[in-house]
């Protein structure tokens, strides 16, 4: 069974944006379209990308868009699982619970559910009908590698204390608290919750961001998932070749770009990645 801590310490994460289509329109997200398109993943393309990545320990984050909309998601996951270096991770707004509930029962898949849109004065607005879908409500402590992912939006800080019962249901080992990030189209929203990271932290982030993207629609590598699609500043992109993948995985493909200078993405002051993670990767 996969171990989240081990993965966080030793694996690099890459977002596979299989389709940009989503059934929700979160106000702080720019990486989606409500248009339903490219809902079947080209498995030949997927196999080629995974082959280029075969020698690297990768957390393959399957998303977009909403991965639950992908018609052949089971085939995609099966393909990722063929290589022991690759760990499939599915980030869903809870639609996967409805359409592919067996994913939640497979401890070899990291299932991460972004199931809260935002906190408001009169309630927590959820994404999806969590209360009608097994395992009902927020993800509770479990050994199946199922996690809530809760974004600390400006409203989270403003209203969280109004909901002690819900907070109790969220505060456990299977909830990931995520800083509000630079993906929002409104920079002021980010400034409300944190200041810009130090330049050295942004430089380290630029060398291998949290996280680069394989764009299945345009079929190229995208430097940074936070500068994507409808964002006014779009990230640099690169052709998908073995050479570029090797460079990327060895911190030689991506540079500190102009958009990194103004980037408001949260970076842990203690370091983008700990030194031990760089040690593990650079020693490979």
């Amino acid at each position, binding site marked *: 069974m996969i171990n989240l801590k081990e993965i966080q310490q030793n694996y690099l994460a890459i977002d596979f944006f299989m389709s940009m289509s989503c059934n929700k329109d979160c106000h702080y997200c720019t990486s989606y379209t409500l248009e339903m398109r490219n809902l079947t993943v080209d498995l030949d393309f997927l196999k080629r990308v995974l082959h280029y990545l075969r020698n690297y320990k990768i957390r393959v984050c399957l998303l977009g868009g909403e991965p639950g909309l992908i018609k052949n998601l089971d085939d995609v996951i099966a393909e990722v699982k063929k290589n022991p270096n690759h760990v499939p991770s599915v980030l869903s707004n809870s639609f996967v619970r409805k359409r592919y509930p067996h994913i939640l029962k497979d401890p070899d898949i990291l299932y991460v559910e972004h199931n809260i849109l935002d906190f408001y004065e009169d309630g927590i607005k959820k994404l999806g009908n969590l209360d009608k879908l097994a395992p009902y409500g927020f993800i509770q402590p479990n050994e199946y590698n199922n996690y809530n992912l809760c974004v600390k939006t400006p409203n989270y800080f403003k209203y969280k204390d109004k909901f002690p019962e819900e907070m109790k249901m969220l505060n456990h080992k299977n909830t990931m608290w995520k800083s509000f990030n630079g993906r929002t189209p409104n920079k002021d929203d980010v400034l409300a919750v944190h200041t810009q990271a130090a330049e050295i932290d942004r430089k*380290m982030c630029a*060398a291998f961001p949290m996280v680069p993207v394989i764009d299945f629609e345009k079929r190229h590598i995208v430097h940074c998932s936070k500068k994507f699609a409808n964002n006014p500043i779009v990230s640099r992109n690169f052709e998908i070749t073995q050479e570029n993948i090797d460079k990327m995985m060895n911190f*030689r493909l991506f540079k500190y770009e102009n958009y990194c200078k103004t980037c408001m993405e949260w970076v842990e002051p203690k370091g983008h990645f700990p030194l031990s993670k760089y040690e593990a990767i650079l*020693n490979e």
Partner: protein
Amino acid sequence: MKIIISPDVTTFCYIDEHDNMVDITDKIPYRLREFVKRMKFIFDDKIAIDRSYTEKENEDIYEYLIEKAYETKDYCFKRTKFKPRPKEKLLIAFNKLFFDKFDNR
């Protein structure tokens, strides 16, 4: 210019043209000396401070790691086991940072 460091990283010297050992500890900023101490976690006793390293080509990531270790005191806080190749690149980055700070003190 090669700088010799005492084993406990408290004294920094160089050998002048008359083969005299010149103590330059006071000329090295305190923060830089403390940083050199932390570098033992990466290089053990094999810390070489030699200006010739600064002319060598390097990759950005190694320079970033050393800069981060300089900027953030607790970033490099326990013994590491980098293999010889990455360790050599870290040594180049370390020397570049050391002489940059030393020259611009």
